[in-house]
């Protein structure tokens, strides 16, 4: 995992608004990049749908239906306005509406990432905090060893090992393949989430654990923590009331990073478990050269990045009185 981004505290509310506008600008830029990038690909979508030997008149008709006969800029705006109305076009492979195709998969992925984050963040905080408070002691060292080893293992290895341990060779407690029928509530298939989520958690845990450990160590050395101790405050309270709230602040940005990392991590993890989500949809779409699906997923992931970061900024401001109430 990577390090915390540098956080430059600027005035709270106005700054947040500026970030939100920037986020929109970023999204627009991303949509341009995605659109032009996929435009640059060789091949004609109409021919891709109808096949190489399709009658020219039918190709022409489809080109008209797909809006391919207007200038590229016009196409871009049509596409963009489609997205804004929730219409991502039609899949070249399955000829279904992309939005419908990705709706349940998006929900599955969202649940997967949400579940992973819901496990990863508290566990990281507990491990990191525990480790920080026992700095340089055996407990700290063992956490260090664990996180270092986990960092060194690519997530596909972690996933493979989990499958062997829990789904096939050693025990058969959990499903090795995440089979969630489309249209059925993923909540009935909770077991299908466990191994993919665990893989994502193990992939991101080291980063967040270390981040929070570092943050806690820094805070535990802060003057106000020493001051609290010198006031006679109980150690438990020193940690929970004085250290943790301040140590959490960089962790918010770190968690955002973890979330956006998971958004990429699902590509490998979903592939590994055949989990019906956006990640496996992306690998499928790439194999099928299914442009509208690729475009849609790229835009959705970018949007997620923007939203998560915005949320993190908002939370950071909420958690940092200096940013929240700066008026002097």
């Amino acid at each position, binding site marked *: 995992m990577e390090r915390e981004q540098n956080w430059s505290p600027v005035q709270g509310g106005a700054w947040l608004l500026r970030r939100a506008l920037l986020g929109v600008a970023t999204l627009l830029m991303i949509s341009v990049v995605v659109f032009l990038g996929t435009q640059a690909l060789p091949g004609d979508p109409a021919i891709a749908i109808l096949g190489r030997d399709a009658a020219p008149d039918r190709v022409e008709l489809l080109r008209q239906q797909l809006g391919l006969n207007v200038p590229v800029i016009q196409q871009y705006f049509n596409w963009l306005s489609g997205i804004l109305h929730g219409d991502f076009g039609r899949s070249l492979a399955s000829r279904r509406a992309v939005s419908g195709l990705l709706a349940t998969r998006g929900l599955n992925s969202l649940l997967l990432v949400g579940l992973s984050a819901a496990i990863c963040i508290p566990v990281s905080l507990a491990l990191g905090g525990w480790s920080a408070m026992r700095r340089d002691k055996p407990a700290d060292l063992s956490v260090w060893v664990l996180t270092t080893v986990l960092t060194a293992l690519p997530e596909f290895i972690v996933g493979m090992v989990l499958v062997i341990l829990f789904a096939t060779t050693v025990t058969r407690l959990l499903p090795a393949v995440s089979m969630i029928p489309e249209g059925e509530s993923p909540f009935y298939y909770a077991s299908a989430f466990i191994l993919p989520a665990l893989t994502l958690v193990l992939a991101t845990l080291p980063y967040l654990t270390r981040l929070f450990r*570092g943050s806690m160590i820094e805070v535990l050395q802060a003057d106000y923590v020493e001051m609290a101790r010198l006031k006679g405050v109980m150690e438990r309270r020193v940690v929970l009331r004085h250290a943790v709230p301040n140590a959490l602040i960089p962790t918010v940005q770190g968690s955002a990073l973890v979330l956006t*990392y998971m958004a990429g991590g699902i590509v490998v993890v979903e592939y590994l478990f055949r989990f019906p989500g956006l990640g496996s949809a992306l690998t499928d779409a790439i194999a099928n050269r299914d442009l509208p699906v690729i475009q849609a997923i790229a835009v959705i992931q970018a949007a997620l990045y923007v939203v998560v970061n915005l949320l993190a900024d908002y939370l950071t401001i909420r958690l940092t009185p200096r940013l929240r109430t700066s008026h002097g």
Partner: protein
Amino acid sequence: MAVGTAMVALVIGVAVLGPMLAPHTPTQFVQRPYALPSAKALLGTDGLGRDVLSRVLNGGFSVLWMSLAATAIGAALGTTIGLVAGYSRSIIDDVLMWLTDVVLAFPQVVLVLLFVSMLGPQLWLIVLVVSISHAPRVARMVRGVTIEIVNQPFIEAAETIGVPTRDILLRELLPNLVTPLMVEIGLRMTWSIGIVAGISFLGFGIQPPASDWGLMISENRDGLILQPFGVLAPLAMIAVFTIGTNLLAEAISRSASNIGDVSPNT
């Protein structure tokens, strides 16, 4: 520090000298596929009956040069962007950071996958895309540290005597970035290895019959239970290298904080 250096040196040694030490060529068929370790093949054979040991000894160079190249290019690019953005204190900073945001919005794996699927599994392309995906991350770190340093009076002192901008960037700022940059490069390096190996794993990287650690893991994963060394041996090399670079990066940042240098908050 010593342990980290030793681990990294070991893996680089294997990658560079390995081909000379290998008992077989990496593509020679030694035994039946997935034979367990024996005198003929010390680590057993892979899914095609080739000697795992020889393939491991031969398979490091590609991972290493690709990761190194990607990291180096990414770090150079990112450092340039970060320095200019951090030092400019103007709209250039905003624009550059915004552009990095656009790149950051694509998860690294997705970015590489998109490009490779469009343009085919060219090694230079993978190196380039990985480095491009590193650049904004390095740039943000460099920018942050640069802003911290720029606010220190010694930069202003140089400005007041009229040192040209280029010299301020290269001679005043850059030396102070060395430590955090080393740490960052260490981290980026482990990322590069992960991505390069991952891309090979997904089948877009080094192509068979070449030996490559990532590819080996992918090729032999079906035989993991039959003949675990086909996966474990290359995995161990990657893991040792990753842990080694991590340890080195950590040692560097620790020594930096000991001497009161500007140190990134790892």
